[in-house]
């Protein structure tokens, strides 16, 4: 009995993959997949750009979404047939939800949006992808950065980052995004935001001092501004000390060390420098004890002053 595909594609010769028995890692494809691929190879060879070819690419993508060859071919057909790009985008929205980590799906989206020269509802779509599947999806965040930069959509993104940090304070991708907005956006001056951002980070640290994300952000944002960490020593060192009145926190110790290293750079006299180095060394010793897995690293830093 003939399969459906055989009748529909009676006029098309088949191009077999034909690695022969003499190969490694051959995949025992399902009959459906290998039939469709045999046809597709012929279509690609003949450069056929037709409705039926378009349909076939979708069927194959459904079975193997990371096959970059099919995506490229589809892209060419879509261009040739003048397919409505918005419907093309809608078509793959569900595939994206089923394959949220597929490089090709995200890249294809980006190409369509670039062609349309319209960000449509992509920001909302990305938010749904993040909240519906994985708050840390690397592709989704990276795509969002591209959209925002490409279409100059910076203005509301700072608020978005706040809402995403609130959603899960330990989502480092959201913190990185916040940093991206403040350091890249032409509408946000990092120096103007600095005071608020220090407050924001401190509040999140108070909430959970064992969360590395706000600690790293706090350091990063100050270092990126026109100020040095040392200039905030009067505020931030007592903050770390108060936080640790009952127990030590490795991220707090690490932060104290960074502030003290920054102070060290400002000192001129050798005697003052030596005293400051002692402070740094003793913080390293504490870290060797409270951040055991990194004890070799902290020993190296201690001996490097």
């Amino acid at each position, binding site marked *: 009995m003939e399969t459906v595909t055989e009748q529909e594609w009676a006029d098309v010769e088949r191009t077999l993959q034909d690695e022969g028995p003499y190969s490694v890692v051959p*995949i025992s494809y399902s009959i459906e997949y290998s039939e469709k691929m045999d046809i597709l190879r012929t279509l690609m060879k003949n450069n056929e750009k037709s409705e039926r070819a378009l349909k076939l690419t979708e069927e194959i993508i459904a079975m193997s979404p990371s096959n970059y060859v099919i995506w490229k071919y589809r892209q060419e057909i879509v261009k040739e047939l003048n397919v409505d790009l918005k419907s093309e985008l809608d078509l793959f929205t569900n595939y994206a939800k089923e394959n949220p980590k597929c490089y090709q799906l995200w890249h294809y989206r980006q190409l369509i949006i670039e062609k349309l020269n319209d960000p449509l509802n992509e920001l909302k779509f990305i938010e749904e992808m993040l909240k519906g599947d994985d708050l840390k999806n690397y592709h989704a965040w990276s795509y969002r950065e591209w959209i925002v930069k490409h279409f100059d959509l910076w203005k509301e993104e700072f608020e978005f980052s706040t809402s995403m940090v609130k959603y899960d304070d330990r989502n480092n991708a959201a913190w990185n995004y916040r940093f991206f907005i403040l350091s890249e956006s032409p509408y946000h001056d990092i120096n103007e935001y600095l005071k608020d951002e220090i407050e924001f980070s401190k509040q999140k640290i108070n909430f959970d001092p064992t969360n590395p994300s706000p600690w790293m952000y706090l350091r990063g944002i100050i270092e990126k501004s026109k100020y040095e960490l040392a200039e905030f020593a009067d505020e931030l060192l007592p903050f770390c000390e108060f936080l640790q009145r009952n127990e030590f926190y490795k991220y707090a110790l690490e932060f104290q060390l960074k502030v003290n290293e920054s102070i060290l750079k400002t000192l001129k006299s050798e005697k003052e420098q030596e005293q400051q180095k002692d402070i740094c060394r003793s913080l390293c010793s504490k870290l060797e004890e409270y951040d*055991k897995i990194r004890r070799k690293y902290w020993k*190296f830093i201690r001996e490097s002053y």
Partner: protein
Amino acid sequence: MGILDLPFSLDEISYNDGGIQTESSNVQIEVENDVKPLIQPYHIMEENRINSDHIILNRHAHIKFLRVGLKGLSSQAVGLDASQAWICYWIIHSLDLLGATLSKSEIERAINTLSACQNPTGGFGGGPYQFSHVAPTYAAVNTLAIIGTEEAYNVINREKLYEWFMSLKQPDGSFQMNEGGEIDVRGCYCVLATAKLLNILTPELTSGVAEFIASCQTYEGGIGGYPGNEAHGGYSFCGLAALEILKKTDYINSDSLMEWVTSCQMKLEGGFQGRINKLVDGCYSFWQGGSFPLLEGIYTKKNEPFDTCGFFDREALQEYILLCCQNQYGGLLDKPKKSPDFYHTCYCLSGLSLAQHYYIYDTIQDDFKENQELTTIVGKVSNLIRATHPVHNISMVKVKKITSYFSNSSIVNVDSTESLASSIEIITNKDKSSDN
């Protein structure tokens, strides 16, 4: 020192959410609960502690798992249809690290398959009849290097490959993964590592790459896939290894990269996370672990003394791989309860190799070499596997062999009469010397 010999109970070093539950903390606690029973029996504070000499690498089971895959994959692998060159690399590199020798027929069949992946326009596709892509090109060339025969080397069309690489180059120095494809730090590494092995690393190919990679280093110290992206273990390795190939590691802040990558080793699990506040994953044993020999090499070059046993806990990493990432029927995995696959088998074993062997940077040879006195083996001595090269991730000997094979071949650039003239000169000089 490892986790097993730490005189603290496992509960003491466990994650504490401080009473504040979020999605991140819940999954972290779940993973720790899966890990603890696997390491507990070997822990120093356990009453009837099993001696850690009993920890074994299931070498034969893994070899069997890999060989079955080499013969063929089930229909469920259809999603890997465009990754056949990768599967070849994952399997053949793993077998090589485990010390398994490929049979004559396995070698011939692998060469056949990889030849079928190569395109006349240059480069390799993910499978036969697939157009070229940078990632499978790296995988295919690495695999041919591991096979290491002249026949394998001769599969590679260097001239066409070079032309194709150049066609992917972007004004900012980076590379597209294929014509019209995405751009990220992976592409830089795959192109440069391949070009280095084949001796086609020209100034035209390398220009601007270091600047692009440097622009991907984030405030955390690690490197992201593209400027603005979050620091990530895979991209950090790719970026750093690419800079090492370029001899331009000074383009990034290596101190902050070291600080970040050390912070990614998990205090209870012993393995690495790929990003801050993410879960441990066996494959980051290599992606994160791989940065250490490179960073240590930078300190050696800068003449900054450091403790001879390196910067991360080599024992703890081996404990994680051996106790938490082995499937008893063969293959290695991401984390307990996951199924084994070829990708995780490859990168768990590569990470194990880096944790066992100790590399030093030889400033005279301008390459890494092993210091065998500092080899560290967790468990049975027979757990020792071959040393992988920290830049290329193929065994050290195979890197030497292929680079010396191609060291005398040059790229003839037909566009430039000057280089054409000089290469003719080299050829004629060669003839003269062979006459003598």
